[in-house]
C-alpha cells in the first residue's frame, strides 16, 4: 500500500442550494503527478480551495500526508505549496520582495530565503527586473513568480491551478522539467488544467470531476480500458474526457443550429 499524500472522504461543499463538491473520495499517492480535470464549473477550483485551506468543507474529511487537516491545519500548510486561482500575489511588492516575504512566512531563515529566491528568480527568468512591482509584470511573469513562491519552502505536495495558462512555450518547457524533477524526488503534484495534452504528457494519474461528483479516477491506462479509439492508435485523454463527461450529450454544441456561420 503506497503512502497516501491526499485522501478525502465524502468531501462536500454547498453554497446555499448549490452543491459544488458532492461527496468526493480522492486518493492520491505520494510522488504522483496527478491531473484533476473537469468542465467549467465542475468544482475543480472549489476542491483545490478546500484542500489548501482556503475554503472549509460543509462535510467530509481530508488527510494530507496522513495529517487531518481540520485537526492540524498549520502542520499541513507547512508541507504544501499552492498556486491558487488568481495567483494570490501581493502586487505592490517586487518579485524578490514577494519571495522573501513568502519564505519568511513559511519559517525559512533569512539566508536560506535569500539564496532560494535568487535561484528561483534566475530559473524563472525574472531576475533582470528586481525593481519592478508585480503589478507591472505580464500575466506569464506573474504565473512564474506564483509558482516560484509555491515551491520556495520545498513543499511535499504542490497544488497548481492552471499553472501554464499565459506562460510562453520556453518557460513552460522549463517549468514542466522542474515539476517532473520534483515528482522524481517524491513531491506530489496536484494539477488542474483545461489543456488536456499537457495533463496527458505530465500526469501519471487523473481524476475527473463533473457537476461536483468524481466520475473517474485512476492511472491513464486504467481510464483507457473500455474506451474505443481509432484502429491502431492509443486512446487520447481528450477521448477519455469526452466519453466520460460528454456522455449525456448536453455538453456538445449543436453545430447544426449555427448554419448561418458555415
Amino acid at each position, binding site marked *: 500500500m503506497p503512502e497516501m499524500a491526499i485522501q478525502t472522504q465524502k468531501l462536500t461543499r454547498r453554497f446555499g442550494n448549490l452543491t459544488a463538491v458532492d461527496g468526493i473520495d480522492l486518493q492520491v499517492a505520494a510522488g504522483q503527478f496527478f491531473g484533476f480535470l473537469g468542465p467549467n464549473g465542475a468544482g475543480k477550483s472549489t476542491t483545490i480551495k478546500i484542500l489548501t485551506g*482556503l475554503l472549509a468543507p460543509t462535510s467530509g474529511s481530508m488527510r494530507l500526508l496522513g495529517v487531518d487537516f481540520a485537526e492540524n491545519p498549520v502542520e499541513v*500548510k507547512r508541507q504544501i505549496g499552492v498556486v*491558487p486561482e488568481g495567483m494570490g500575489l501581493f*502586487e505592490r511588492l517586487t518579485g524578490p520582495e514577494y519571495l522573501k516575504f513568502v519564505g519568511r*512566512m513559511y*519559517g525559512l531563515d533569512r539566508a536560506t530565503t535569500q539564496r532560494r529566491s535568487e535561484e528561483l528568480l534566475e530559473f524563472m527568468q525574472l531576475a533582470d527586473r528586481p525593481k519592478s512591482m508585480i*503589478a507591472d509584470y505580464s500575466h506569464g511573469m506573474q504565473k512564474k513568480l506564483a509558482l516560484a513562491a509555491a515551491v520556495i519552502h520545498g513543499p511535499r505536495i504542490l497544488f497548481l491551478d492552471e499553472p501554464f495558462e499565459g506562460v510562453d512555450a520556453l518557460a513552460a518547457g522549463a517549468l514542466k522539467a522542474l515539476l517532473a524533477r520534483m515528482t522524481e524526488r517524491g513531491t506530489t503534484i496536484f494539477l488542474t488544467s483545461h489543456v488536456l495534452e499537457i495533463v496527458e504528457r505530465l500526469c501519471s494519474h487523473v481524476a475527473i470531476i463533473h457537476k461536483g461528483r468524481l466520475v473517474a479516477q485512476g492511472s491513464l491506462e486504467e481510464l483507457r480500458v473500455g474506451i474505443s479509439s481509432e484502429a491502431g492508435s492509443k486512446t487520447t485523454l481528450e477521448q477519455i474526457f469526452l466519453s466520460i463527461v460528454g456522455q449525456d450529450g448536453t455538453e456538445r454544441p449543436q453545430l447544426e443550429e449555427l448554419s*448561418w456561420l458555415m
Partner: protein
Amino acid sequence: MADVTQSVNVFEQIRLVAGLRWRILRNSLRKKNNRLDLIGLIFTGIFSGIVVIGLCFAFYAGAYAFLSRGRLEWMASLFWGIFLFWQLFPVFVAGFGASFEFRTLLRFPLNLRAFYIIGLAYGFADFSALASICWLLAMTAGAAVAKPGVLPAMLVIVAAFILLNATLERLIGSWLERLLARRRTRELFLGLFVLSMVSLNFLSPLMQRYGASARPVFLRVLPYFAWFPPSLAGRALAAIIRLQPAGFLLNSALLLLYLVLFSALLWCRFAAQYRGEEVSETAAPARTAVRPIAGKDHGPDRLSLLSPPVAAVVRKEFRYLTRNGFAYLTLLMPPLLIMIFSMNFAGRHPTVGGKGVSADIFFPGMMAYLILILMAPAYNSFAYEGRGIQTYFTAPLRFRDVLLGKNLMLVSVLSVEIALSIAMLAWRVGLPSAHMLVATCAAIIFTIVGQLTVANWSSITFPRKMEFGQMRGQRQSGMAVLVAFASQILMGGISAVILFTGNWTGNPWLPAEAFVLLAAAAVGGYFASLDALTKLAEEKKEGLIEALCR
C-alpha cells in the same frame, strides 16, 4: 459563407452607446449593497436638481439684470462661471477612477469620424455639461426677455460656446486620461489633489495677511483674461447690443478660432487613440538594466525581536505604505492640520475667535482629532491586500501574527506622526501643563490600543477591497464606517469625561492616573483578543477572500 454585416450609422452607434451606459448602471444596481447606492443616487439627484434649477434662476436673473441695466461687461462673468464649472468639475469627480472606457468601442467597425463624434457626444452626458447647458439656456432666456432683439446673436454665441466647452472638456479629459494611465502618476496626482484641497484652509489666514498687497497684482493680470473664450463670448454679446457688428464679428471669429483649434487638437488625440495608442504601464513594461540581486539584504535583521511571520508582515506593510502615493502623502496631513488649526484658533494671533485657545485644551483636542483621522484606515486594514489575502490562509501561521504585524506597523506610523505633531504643537502653541501632557499621552495609548481591538474585528467582519491611487468607487463598507464612528465616539467620550474630572475634583493628576490604568487594561485586552480574532478570521475567511479577490 458567414454573413457580412451592413455598416451602422453614427447616430445609431451613439444610441447604442447611450443604451450600453444605461444598462451598465442598471446592472450595477442589482446587488443588495448597490441598491443602497441607488437610494444615495436618488438623494444626490434630487439635491443636484435643486442646485441646477436654483442656479438657472440665478443665471436668468443675472443676464436679465446686466442687460436691462446696461452693465454689458458683466455678462462675461456669467460665461466665466459656467466655463470654469464645465471644465473643472469633471476633473474633480471623474479624473481618478476607471469609469466606462469608451475606447473599448474601437473593437467595433467605426471610422475615425464616427469615433470622434461618439467621443464628443459622450462629453455631453456629463453632469457638468448638462447643468451648464441648462444655465446657458437660462441666460439666453434672461437676455431675450431684457433685449428681445439680441436673441439670434445670443443663440449663435451660446451654440458656439457649448460646442467649444464640450470639445475642450473632452480634450482635457483625454489628456488627463493619458497622464493618469500610469499608476505612479495617478497616485501622485491624487496625493497632490488631496494636499491642495487641504491647503485651501490656508487661504483665509493668507488672505488676511497678504490680501491687500495681492490686489494690485490681480488687477494687473485681469486684462489678459479678455482673450479667453468666456470674455470673448461676453464681448461679442455686448458688441451686438451696442450695434457694433465689427466687434461682434471679430469676437465671434476669435471664439470660432478657439473652437477650431480645440477641435483640431482633440482630433489629433482621438486619432492617436484610434490608431491604438496604449500608455498604461502593464501593456509593454520597459526593460530595466540587469541588476544582480545577490549580496543584498544580508545585514543584521532589524526586526529580529519579532517572529519571522510578524516581521515579514511588518516589512510588507511598510513597503505597501511607501508605494501607496496617496497614503504616503496623507502622512503629511497631521502636522499641516496642526499648523492650520493653530493659525485659526490657538497661539497669540488666532484668526478666528480673537482670543487664543489655551494649550491645555488645544493639545488634547488636536491629539483626539489626529487619532480620529489616522485610525480610520485600521477599520478596513485588509483593503489593499487584493488576492494576496489568500497567502495568509495558505501559509502555516496563525492569523494573530498577521494582525500583530499590521498593528505594529500602524502603531509605528502613529508614533512618528504623533511625535511630529507634538513637536509642531510645542513650536506653534507651546506644551500643556505636565499633568495634562501625561494624561493625554496615556489617553492616546488607551484610545489607540482600545480601537485596534475593535478595528481588527471590523476588518475581518466587514472587509472591502480598495485600489491604490484611486478615489472613485473607493468606499469603506458602510458597517465598518459605522463601527469606526461608534468606537471613536465611545473612546472619545470616555476620554473627555475623564479629562474633565481633573477640573471637577480639583485633583489635576487624577485623569493621568485613570488613563494609565485604562491604557494597561486596553493593552491586556488587546493581546487577549488576538486568539479570538484568529478563530474569527478562520470562520470568516471565505467572505474575506471573496471580498478582496473580486
